[in-house]
């Protein structure tokens, strides 16, 4: 080990890393809530083609990304699954003031990968003819909060509590249902873009709107490519992609 490594080399290494960064100034790093995986990949592809900039994508639960940003993670933009976390970052002075906006409004769906399952109007929930119902953990995930609200609106939450299994985020919830380990589950409609089976798009009056906010982080305040990406996210091309995945957009 000591043959290859000495503390004296550290300054050299740091300079090398610094040079590598300035040489690729048009790099931007974005952290995105996992429910938005499908659309963001298409949007990034379009953005890179049109601007020549390079985008690095980090996917995860909003809670984890929030904690990482609070502890100095080097992200330029954060696309949350809710509006609470970007607002909290703003309050702590970790964002570029005035950069926060709602990029999408999430839609919840009840889904089974098998065809012919009576998910419409939540019929299967009322009949109770299933073993396990998956939802994202309401303590952690906005789509979990919405799913809990739907069950409460239908006055079924208490009755179904023993059948609930919880994913840490909406991606794991989808996985539980896709592998058949849960018969049905509340997932994000955006995740069902290519999925087959039975789905019920839950009416929006049964849960509080899932406003998904984006915010530019302080470290990026002088990076023009980041602001370009933020504008791109609101432009016609991106909106078309977002809508195609089943989200709504404000106005």
């Amino acid at each position, binding site marked *: 080990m000591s043959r290859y490594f000495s503390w004296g080399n550290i300054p050299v290494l740091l300079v090398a890393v610094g040079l590598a960064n300035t040489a690729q100034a048009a790099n931007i790093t974005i952290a995105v809530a996992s429910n938005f995986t499908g659309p963001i990949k298409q949007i990034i592809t379009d953005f890179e083609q049109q601007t020549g900039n390079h985008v690095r994508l980090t996917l995860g639960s909003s*809670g984890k990304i929030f904690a990482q940003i609070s502890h100095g993670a080097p992200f330029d933009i954060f696309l949350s699954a809710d509006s609470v976390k970007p607002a909290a970052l703003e309050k702590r002075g970790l964002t570029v003031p005035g950069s926060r906006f709602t990029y999408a409004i999430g839609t919840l769906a009840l889904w089974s990968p098998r065809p012919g399952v009576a998910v419409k109007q939540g019929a299967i929930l009322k009949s109770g003819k299933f073993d*396990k119902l998956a939802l994202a*953990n309401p303590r*952690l995930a906005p789509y979990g909060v919405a799913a809990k609200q739907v069950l409460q609106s239908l006055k079924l939450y208490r009755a179904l509590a023993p059948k609930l299994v919880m994913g*840490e985020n909406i991606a794991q919830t989808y996985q539980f249902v896709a592998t058949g*380990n849960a018969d049905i589950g509340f997932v994000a409609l955006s995740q069902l873009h290519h999925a087959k089976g039975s789905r019920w798009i839950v009416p929006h009056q049964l849960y509080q709107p899932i406003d998904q906010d984006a915010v530019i982080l302080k470290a990026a305040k002088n990076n023009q490519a980041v602001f370009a990406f933020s504008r791109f996210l609101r432009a016609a091309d991106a909106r078309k992609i977002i809508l195609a995945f089943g989200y709504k957009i404000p106005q």
Partner: protein
Amino acid sequence: MNTGFSQADLIAIWLTLRIATVTTLVLLIIGSPIALWLARTGSRWKGPVSAVVALPLVLPPTVLGFYLLIIMGPNGPVGELTRALGLGTLPFTFWGLVVASTIYSLPFVVQPIQNAIEALGPRPLEVAATLRAGPWDRFFTIILPLARPGFVTAAILGFAHTVGEFGVILMVGGNIPGVTQVISVQIYDHVEAMEYTAAHWLSGGMVVFSFIILTLVYSFNRRRKSSGGTYGV
């Protein structure tokens, strides 16, 4: 907030201890014959079997969790078997976590026992065989007493490693209080929900617990060594 453990935390602690205890018993029952065979065999299958046993050491827990979810699910071979037996499917159940933990902690039980038996050498068993001791007799009167430190180390490590398990349980557990919501998952949830005080209580407890366990293992092994012979030969 500074009231120590919540009701949910206590449930998680009790559940974790139950899973670890059951898993350790299952591991000793399954792991002993594997270790015995590996210690004695000259078969060309020794390499591949050793590799399979050691796989959980090097594979990310996500790989194990992902495959267990598929294999134990209703469309997987194990899932079809358990359903045909009228047991339902294993993910999201206590026994599902025991199965997952058994696979995950297998090397921690097999390897100490195997080492202890190998250290005995073939002599004691050959002598016993000439005295017409059967295989069961040999195991309980020769191997178990002579290789006891190996079995004790295996049990402690298997238990501790199961208590510390996280990734696999996160993937096949489904986070059900009292059924699959173990300490490590509960800590993860506390951190994600920004309840750092609650996370500190459980995390601090785990650090103390692990320290005590490892201290026990090392002082136990050292005492054996200083009193002559690593594994009581």
